[in-house]
């Protein structure tokens, strides 16, 4: 048993509530860097071995199991003066006596530091791949963005050059200043949109957000690309529901879908994209439909696989839709291509916030 616990880095314990007797397995001593031939630590001594911030949660969980007998499973950290995080997972359950009172607690404590580090690494890699895809989207949009900035810039620089010529005409000066302010505002809006979109998803946590607002942001971000290809984009919404999400990631999803739709139809004669937002029960539905004639079944099957692309070499990374799906999976949301639609339609379903 000791060998098995050593291999699994798992220790076990039991606590007799009435007598207060605590038993630890050999491996549990080892996890807490204690000599197993010594005394088993008291509950208070054990608490002092834990990471300070986790102590309160640990104590309240144990108190709850003694009171209610409800099993627990949670993660906490060991206090370590070597400044390395040692992550532990505690599982505990209670045995009740004939009168229904908790008489014995027993459980395990496993060193899961390797698992937590791997999870952290995966989380970081995921954030990195989302950020890379986002930068790829920005790269694709940069030509259009330059155009959107150069126009108001021409208004600003032209009016600045005009000012000395109209110095004696207050009305013209006022018009000039108004034009400069309006154009500056346009640039500020574009730059703010880019700044917000470029943030890493780690900088934005899950929170209650208006999906209507996020759709607007995505439309603003893709506006230059949409206009550049003479695509007519429309947006309808029957409500303005909130959802719990990372707004930067959901905006990325919508930017991907709109951008892909533009790429798919830009060579067609009929070029339009319709975005619809509505609710079905407790679900919020976003449809991004374009004037394309649907996606063949064999293509649809692989659509969300990494590196799958129907674009020409050099035109797409093939990561867009796989990242889109990954983000939505993390949100407990779904995405599918509607087979029964005469056009190409991607439908996202996400739970409405309470």
């Amino acid at each position, binding site marked *: 048993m000791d060998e098995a616990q050593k291999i699994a880095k798992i220790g076990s314990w039991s606590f007799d509530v009435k007598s207060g007797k605590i038993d630890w397995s050999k491996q549990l001593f080892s996890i807490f860097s204690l000599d197993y031939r010594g005394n088993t630590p008291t509950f208070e001594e054990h608490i002092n071995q834990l990471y300070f911030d986790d102590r309160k949660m640990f104590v309240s969980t144990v108190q709850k199991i003694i009171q209610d007998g409800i099993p627990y499973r949670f993660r906490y950290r060991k206090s370590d003066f070597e400044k390395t995080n040692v992550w532990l997972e505690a599982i505990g359950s209670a045995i009740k006596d004939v009168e229904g009172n908790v008489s014995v607690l027993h459980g395990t404590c496993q060193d899961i530091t390797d698992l937590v580090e791997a999870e952290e690494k995966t989380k970081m890699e995921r954030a990195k791949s989302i950020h890379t895809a986002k930068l790829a989207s920005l790269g694709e949009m940069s030509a259009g963005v330059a155009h959107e900035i150069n126009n108001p810039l*021409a208004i600003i620089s*032209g009016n600045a050059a005009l000012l000395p010529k109209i110095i004696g005409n207050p009305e013209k000066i006022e018009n000039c200043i108004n034009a400069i302010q309006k154009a500056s505002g346009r640039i500020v809006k574009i730059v703010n949109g880019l700044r917000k979109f470029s943030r890493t998803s780690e900088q934005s946590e899950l929170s209650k957000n208006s999906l209507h607002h996020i759709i607007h942001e995505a439309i603003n971000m893709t506006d230059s690309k949409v206009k550049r290809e*003479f695509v007519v984009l429309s947006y309808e919404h029957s409500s303005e529901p909130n959802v719990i999400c990372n707004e930067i990631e959901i905006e990325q999803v919508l930017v991907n879908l709109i951008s892909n739709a533009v790429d798919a139809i830009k060579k067609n004669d009929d070029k339009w994209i319709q975005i619809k937002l509505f609710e079905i029960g407790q679900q919020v539905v976003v449809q991004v439909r374009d004037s394309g004639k649907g996606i063949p079944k064999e293509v649809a099957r692989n659509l969300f696989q990494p590196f799958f692309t129907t674009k020409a070499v050099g035109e797409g990374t093939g990561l867009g839709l796989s990242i889109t799906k990954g983000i939505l999976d993390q949100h407990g949301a779904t995405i599918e291509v509607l087979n029964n639609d005469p056009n190409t339609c991607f439908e996202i379903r996400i739970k409405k916030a309470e």
Partner: protein
Amino acid sequence: MALNLVYLDDEEDLCSLFAEMFSSDEVKIKTFVDPELAIQEVSSNPPDLIFLDFRLPKVTGDMVALKMNNAIPKVLISGDISPITEYKFLKIFGKPWTVSEVENLILEFKNKK
């Protein structure tokens, strides 16, 4: 005799700026935000020089140029980093254009006239 120019841009502020900046007794400028109206004007009153914005709401300056009298010299003005055109423009100015580059071109045409 005055030099007649046509300026087409979907940005109204740029149209009024261009007219304010370069109009004089010797330079008459008509500005348009609607490509169709610009095409009609060029057809009925051919100017000496035409300035066309590249990205317009439904067409490009390239497409507009193809619908206008080929004999009239045309300048493309574009906010794009490198606009791809089929039409042979006299010059391509980037946005923001500089006053001197436009003034020098107008002066060149005035002297020719």
